[in-house]
């Protein structure tokens, strides 16, 4: 048998690759971002100079950054919608019925599709002469709300008033399968007898959903809500591929990305990302409180 000190050496040897890589690519960036936020950084020669909070003063007064923050907060609207929808869908696919695996798989397809590729199709869906308007036109004409010659021509991603909501629609489509799976795991932990007893007592589907399903998957709801709140604050790849920030769709992280890789102002980008990190940290603390209380 070995001594405990040799275990320590072995343990750290095994952990070394993970610790080194995480140190370079996860922990170092946090520190370096904080440093950069207070500097004027020049990408060409790698020099940086202290600038007396200039970046923070700038973004504090900048309209674009305010709008980006506002959009990021607006994106939180997607959280309750996606959670409720995911729970309902999980409930629908929780029964052992024919073809149920096919349904589950088809709901998961958006999750495993590359965001960039999915966005190309969705750009064609959202165009003013795209598929969404065609479908709406078809339905409204069938229902005789629109006359035969009239068409719906909403600029889903061209109109600054609705573009951010279209981005949220894309986020919803892309993410719902992921939460469905998490809820499915939660639902499968509910014993079947509970529901059967409620059926015998004459509870209808609506009552069973709110009085049994929701309370019993409450831990999963909490987890998923926090996950999707953080994800909603971090929305930006969808913006980058769908609208590229046009028509007032800047989100906080898209601002960071655009400042860094379109304006090459790394310092200002770092300052903005520090603000985002701060918000995420607050959420992390909330998360710990929630799950700390539970145990």
């Amino acid at each position: 048998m070995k001594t405990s000190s040799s275990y320590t050496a072995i343990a750290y040897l095994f952990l070394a690759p993970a610790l080194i890589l995480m140190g370079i690519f996860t922990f170092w960036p946090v520190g370096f971002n904080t440093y950069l936020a207070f500097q004027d950084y020049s990408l060409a020669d790698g020099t940086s100079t202290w600038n007396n909070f200039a970046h923070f003063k700038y973004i504090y007064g900048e309209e674009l950054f305010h709008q980006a923050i506002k959009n990021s907060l607006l994106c939180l609207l997607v959280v309750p919608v996606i959670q409720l929808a995911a729970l309902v869908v999980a409930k629908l696919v929780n029964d052992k019925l024919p073809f149920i695996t096919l349904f589950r798989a088809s709901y998961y397809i958006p999750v495993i599709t590359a965001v960039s590729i999915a966005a190309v199709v969705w750009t064609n869906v959202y165009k003013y002469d795209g598929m969404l308007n065609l479908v709406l036109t078809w339905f409204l004409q069938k229902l005789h709300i629109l006359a035969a010659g009239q068409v719906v021509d909403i600029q889903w991603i061209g109109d600054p008033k609705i573009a951010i909501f279209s981005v949220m629609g894309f986020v919803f489509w892309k993410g719902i399968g992921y939460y469905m799976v998490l809820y499915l795991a939660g639902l499968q932990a509910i014993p079947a007898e509970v529901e059967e007893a409620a059926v015998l007592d004459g509870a209808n589907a609506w009552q069973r959903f709110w009085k049994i399903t929701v309370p019993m998957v409450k831990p999963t709801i909490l987890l998923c809500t926090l996950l999707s709140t953080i994800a909603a604050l971090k929305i930006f790849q969808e913006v980058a591929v769908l609208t590229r920030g046009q028509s007032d769709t800047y989100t906080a992280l898209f601002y960071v990305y655009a400042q860094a890789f379109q304006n090459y102002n790394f310092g200002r980008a770092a300052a903005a990302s520090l603000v985002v990190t701060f918000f995420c940290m607050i959420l992390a603390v909330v998360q710990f409180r929630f799950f700390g209380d539970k145990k």
Partner: protein
Amino acid sequence: MASNTLRRIIGLILQYAGLLAFMAFTTFPFFWALSVALSADPSYIWLFPDAFVPHDFSFMWFKRVFAEMPFMVYLKNSTIMSFWTIIGVVAVSVMAGYPLARLKFPGRGLIFAGIIATLMLPSETNIIPNFITLKNFGMWAAALQEHLHLPSDWNMREWVGLNSYFGAIIPNFAGAFGIFLMKQAFEQIPQDLVDAARVDGATELQIMWRVMVPVSIPSIAALTIFTLVNAWNDYLWPSIVMNSKEKLPLAVGVFNDLTGPFATSTSLVMAAIVMTVIPVLIFFAFTQRYFIGGLDGAVK
């Protein structure tokens, strides 16, 4: 009794109606793309519902994708990058998971808490410092090359710096998810097995490689599958790191081509999209139980 059965049937019909409606919502972009890509006649693309049925069935758009776009180059890059990401993630996670699960050493709790804490950080903000880090890697490599008087056509800057496969995948190697998954898997292995190996004089490396890894194959498979899909679909970081067209993976290369000057024909765009998504879908068809059934372990 009869009314009860009737109610059951109506409920079932409603359930299937809901399921089908939602299926239409999640899959319509794909079916639209498929049907447009298979139609030689592009005049139905902007007609509903005709666009969802192939007209004039042919594979000509797929052939044109191969002719007009370096699709095979992108496919090769995606394969290389995904393969090495899997190797890297599994190796790093297995090695880190083992001591965290089975060895007692000072600092274990702290290290584990630190790794889990990275889940809270908005990893997207790392792109700026990591970009600079990789740029420095490239500069150091170039300096080393010069210092050692290596032939200038080696171009070591593009081995480890920006515009390298290495740079595009290395930040993904050490992830909290993988380490956590392997730690959980290793914790479930009976201690007797480890003790028996130790009594037989096995070293820690042998215990890990000969005892732990074979028993944990299902978890490693799950990690491999998740990593593959993530690596295959990774868009943002490769799009920032890579600047030469011949090193782009599918998710970036196809997107750039489809939104750039290439996007002259919607049929061509849709064909390229179908070709990009199909490999993932086939893979998903075989492994879907890992995605939509095997997550319970990760949630609990």
